[in-house]
């Protein structure tokens, strides 16, 4: 059973001659344990796709099914609950809260989410991401790479089924970018989650199980050679 399923999903912005079909009719499946890359030029519809999958944007037509829940049939309040439970976001800009230390960023999630990580699991997460020494630091005291790792810790906290990353390496140099991809790959495999990474950086596709191409709102699977 696929963890994520898109059936005939389409998204248009605007109406009449100003209408932009950001995402043409798309079917999509993702299984647990898959690391998927979506590459394509700027403006091709990658973010549109990702925000629809994340339940932040409603498709114009079609349905999005996450872990057997059809998002289209839910109101914003219920979708927000699903996001909290099932989805971890990693964004281009760091999604850290400026006035919380790294440790407290996770503690906040601990407060709003029910069914949490044990202490040992949390320690493991710190260790996996190499941020054990950073827990008392504020985001402003972290380097770009450290910030992104903390953000990933946040996305991974309490094991969501799907991790969505929009250009997670955009603000990082090559070495850091590879590190982050390595991390995502390990987490995906170890925790059996599904990770979708949107990027225009083709060097990162080597880490992924499947690579899709996005061009003008059309998503096509690229065979890996």
């Amino acid at each position: 059973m696929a963890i994520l399923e898109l059936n005939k999903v389409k998204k248009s912005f605007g109406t009449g001659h100003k209408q932009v079909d950001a995402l043409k009719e798309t079917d999509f499946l993702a299984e647990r344990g898959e690391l998927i890359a979506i590459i394509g030029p700027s403006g091709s519809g990658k973010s549109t796709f990702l925000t629809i999958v994340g339940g932040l944007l409603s498709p114009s037509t079609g349905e999005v099914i996450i872990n057997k829940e059809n998002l289209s049939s839910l109101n914003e309040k219920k979708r927000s609950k699903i996001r909290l439970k099932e989805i971890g976001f990693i964004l281009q800009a760091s999604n850290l809260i400026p006035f919380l230390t790294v440790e407290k960023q996770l503690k906040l999630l601990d407060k709003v989410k029910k069914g949490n990580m044990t202490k040992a699991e949390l320690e493991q997460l710190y260790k996996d991401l190499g941020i054990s020494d950073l827990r008392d630091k504020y985001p402003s005291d972290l380097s770009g790479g450290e910030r992104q790792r903390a953000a990933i810790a946040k996305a991974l906290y309490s094991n969501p089924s799907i991790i969505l990353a929009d250009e997670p390496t955009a603000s990082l140099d090559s070495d850091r970018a590879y590190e982050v991809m390595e991390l995502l790959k390990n987490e995906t495999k170890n925790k059996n989650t599904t990770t979708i990474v949107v990027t225009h950086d083709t060097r990162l596709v080597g880490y992924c199980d499947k690579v899709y191409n996005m061009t003008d709102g059309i998503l096509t699977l690229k065979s890996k050679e």
Partner: protein
Amino acid sequence: MFLAWNEIKKNKLRFILITGVLMLVSYLVFFLSGLATGLQDMNRESVDKWNATAIILTAESDKSLYQSSMTLDDAESVKAKEIAVIAQMSAIAGNGDKKKNVTIFGIKEDEFIMPSVTEGNVFSEVGEVIASDALIEEGFKVGDKLQLSSTEETLTIVGFTDDARFNAAPVLYSDLNTFDKVKYGESADVNKNNINGVVIKTDDLKNATENDALEVVETETFIRNLPGYTEQNLTLNFMIYFLFVISAVIVAIFLYVLTVQKISMFGIMKAQGISNVYLSKSVIAQTFILATIGVAIGFVLTLITGTFLPSAVPVSFDFPTMLIYGVVLILVAIAGAVFSVLTIVKIDPLKAIGG
């Protein structure tokens, strides 16, 4: 609370600023309320002390004791559980050293408005008075001979009593004989039946008098009609209510600015699935923390200031009133946070993601 408190801890300066403003506003509110109570006391203290139901004045006096004029015979016709006749005049009294505006009440020693002395003795001879202990602070003592502005007669303070100010002047209680001497001089005898009103305690106000020329004025009504009393209260209360509005507006603007600065942060949290309810509660909790701290400091500052004030400043703190005002200030601040809550609810998480 978690978000609210951690943000305050990290951004101390900006939150100290808003707390400081709330503190100043509440300081002002508490102080004005103290002033209002103090001024009220100056006017009504002696009347409150009588613990009377009503006072009977002439119908044409327009509820003014000074304007009311009747006789002891009128008092005879009054039906009440307890009655006490009262004659009143204003004068300037001096002990050779200090001069002070006073109200003189002529009363009967065996009636219920007779004050109990806190120092010295009750009056027994003509010319003796029991004075308000407010005069002690002005330098008057037991045994002082008082010259009056209106007459050659002198009065002697034989005792003091507490809570005895009327319409902003300390009271001298005297026997009716003494009073008549002071007020009418040579013609005291002719006027010995004249009084200004009758103070009563009764369960049956309606039937206190059948005389159409007399009017039964309930104690509260009587006090409200003291010259300047109501106007003074309205002015001070208006200032206090205005301060409530000001603090709501200040808090609203301040929190709104803070919220607008944090829109993308709220958006990210909403994208992660943190609910509007949680974020709104956090803003409310923050306001509550700041307002409570501000009001508490304002309260303490008010009390500290109170102990340093010269006794001439009529400030008197009524704790139940201050408690109510404190709670209102906190509620009003929270009302000011509603704007921010509305803003947060309207934030589109998608915009924050900046797809």
